[in-house]
């Protein structure tokens, strides 16, 4: 512990160079899968390589992916939100309700996102304020939020959204580049910076690995988790605006089953379901992988239900592979 002692011991900063770590990382492996799928698709269908077709295909995943980025942070912190699809339904219903009072497009968007945020606040308060397990709380709010939509809408639907509102889900920014896609890229970047480049992101990782130790290290655990629930709610609200605009109508059954698709995307993206690790790059590529599978198989007119076999199998295989190779490696040791 003396000065001399210190000088003759040298600890490297890093064992591997950042480049080396990046090459042998989950997102890279997944990227290889994505490129493979792309090439496979090119050969499988002559219609695949058309800018418009590809552009149309992005709509299948952008809305889900926007939620998935926030969900990734939440899952890394060791929590989960199963109510995202229900939040979409409620946000969409609130927009529809506002529409009945003749509000304009900006107000509609504001109401949609704010409803999402409010739902996130509600989840966050229940989970962090009362210290309840998020998986069961959000199973509850999942029924609760969608239930409110059903109470309001019953068997009716809201239609007649203004022309200008259609831009969010149907508009193009430039040539084949849709507004949704641009928003998806911007949000991906924002979440990349938030998770990997800020103190907040570091706190998220610390909490996911060991919430008690993080708390003892001065991380405001409850506050961070609360904010994450708010973010997930906000993103669900944004997704609700996009989806409602794309459909041009609201029914309480909108976005049914999305929660599991969003979580699948996050897990496929290499986020540990038990918390503590994961990257935004991984989720970003996973969104494309899921998009490519469903679009590619769609071009071959494979029913959606059969596509889900591929996605489910991919999920298990992709999680199992590294574990299996590790097992083999260890046996050889």
């Amino acid at each position: 512990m003396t000065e001399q002692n210190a000088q003759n011991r040298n600890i490297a900063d890093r064992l591997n160079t950042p480049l080396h770590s990046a090459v042998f990382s989950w997102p890279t492996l997944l990227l290889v899968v994505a490129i493979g799928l792309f090439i496979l698709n090119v050969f499988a269908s002559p219609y695949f390589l058309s800018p418009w077709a590809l552009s149309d295909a992005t709509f299948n995943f952008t809305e889900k992916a926007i939620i998935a980025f926030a969900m990734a942070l939440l899952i890394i912190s060791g929590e989960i939100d199963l109510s995202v699809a229900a939040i979409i339904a409620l946000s969409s219903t609130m927009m529809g309700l506002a529409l009945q009072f003749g509000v304009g497009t900006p107000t509609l968007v504001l109401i949609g996102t704010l409803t999402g945020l409010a739902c996130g606040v509600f989840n966050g308060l229940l989970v962090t304020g009362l210290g309840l397990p998020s998986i069961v709380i959000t199973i509850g709010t999942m029924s609760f939020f969608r239930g409110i939509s059903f109470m309001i809408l019953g068997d009716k639907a809201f239609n007649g959204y203004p022309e200008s509102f259609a831009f969010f889900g149907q508009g193009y920014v430039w040539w084949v580049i849709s507004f949704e896609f641009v928003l998806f890229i911007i949000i991906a970047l924002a979440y990349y910076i938030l998770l990997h480049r800020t103190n907040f992101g570091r706190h998220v990782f610390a909490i996911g690995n060991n919430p008690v130790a993080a708390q003892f290290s001065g991380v405001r655990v409850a506050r961070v988790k609360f904010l994450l629930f708010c973010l997930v709610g906000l993103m669900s609200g944004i997704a609700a605006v996009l989806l409602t605009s794309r459909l041009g109508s609201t029914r309480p059954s909108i976005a049914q089953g999305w929660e599991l698709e969003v979580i699948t995307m996050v897990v496929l993206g290499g986020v540990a379901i038990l918390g503590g690790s994961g990257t935004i790059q991984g989720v970003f590529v996973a969104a494309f992988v899921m998009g490519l599978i469903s679009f590619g198989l769609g071009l071959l007119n494979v029913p959606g239900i059969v596509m889900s076999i591929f996605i489910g199998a991919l999920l298990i295989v992709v999680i199992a592979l590294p574990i299996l190779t590790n097992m083999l490696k260890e046996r050889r040791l």
Partner: protein
Amino acid sequence: MRAFIRNHEFWLAVVVVLMIGATAFRSPGFASPEKLAGIFNDSSMLIILALGQMVVILTRSIDLSMASNLALSGMIVALINAAYPEIPVPALMLLATFCGLCLGAFNGTMIWWIGIPSIVVTLGTLTIYRGFIFLIAGGKWVNADRFSEEFVQYTRYEFLGLPALSWYAIIIVIGFFILMTRTSLGRSIYAVGVNPSAALYTGINIGRTQFVAFCISGALSGFCGYLWVSRYVIGSVEVAKGYELTIVAACVIGGISIAGGVGTVAGAVLGALFLGVMSNALPVIGVSPFWQMAISGAAIILAVIINASSQQKSKRLILKQENAAS
């Protein structure tokens, strides 16, 4: 006695009885024996499934594939019955159970041997199993017309005023009561959930116990696959879609802790009955069925809050003198 009153199951039973009472107050016919039997019959499948999910949750896992397993096993026996009506129905029931068992065992193997978290495995098989229904049935439904009369009747035969479906549930509940309180397997399931590392030291194989739990939930799902198809007289890809979360909800309302190790057979049964009574009662008291979802959501949230506050660690109270004085 005091322990009994503090008991979660006791209060849940009180709530269920109050719900029946309140509904009967508004609509006198509701508490008639036939109506109550009908409600029990309606809840039977959920009771059976909730018991399977309970076993899994007790071992600190979750099975999201139960509904898909149910639908796939159900479709298999539906197709067989449509093609070979002469095969006796009890054989088909066994077959459905066996199919479910195999599907559950697949989940269990992934969790035990490879060590993938249960939520990931069953999220995957949730979609895979359902996809297989489409493949094996070629996308077609099996309609009422294609079932043999016997196939349909095996959930409907009446005995002592209760349909067979209810009796299956009653027998399974009794079986589970014995399994969970009086057998080594039952106690190991609790032990694994309460403290896995301690369970290991006691000689319990955690992975194998979880595997067995998934086999149990799978077998029950498979059996319910037959029940479902027979009860609703249809086999389709959409059977019981989204039901996995209802099953978890029944467990949560029944006081089964998602963290494992805490929960009873009575709790799971009451949780399922709670949902069953509610869905029967709402239309009767003139509440729009569209309100049902929101109300059951609120019930789940309340149940979780109440469970959490009753299960809170008792304070240590090391300040003995002061508390004795006050």
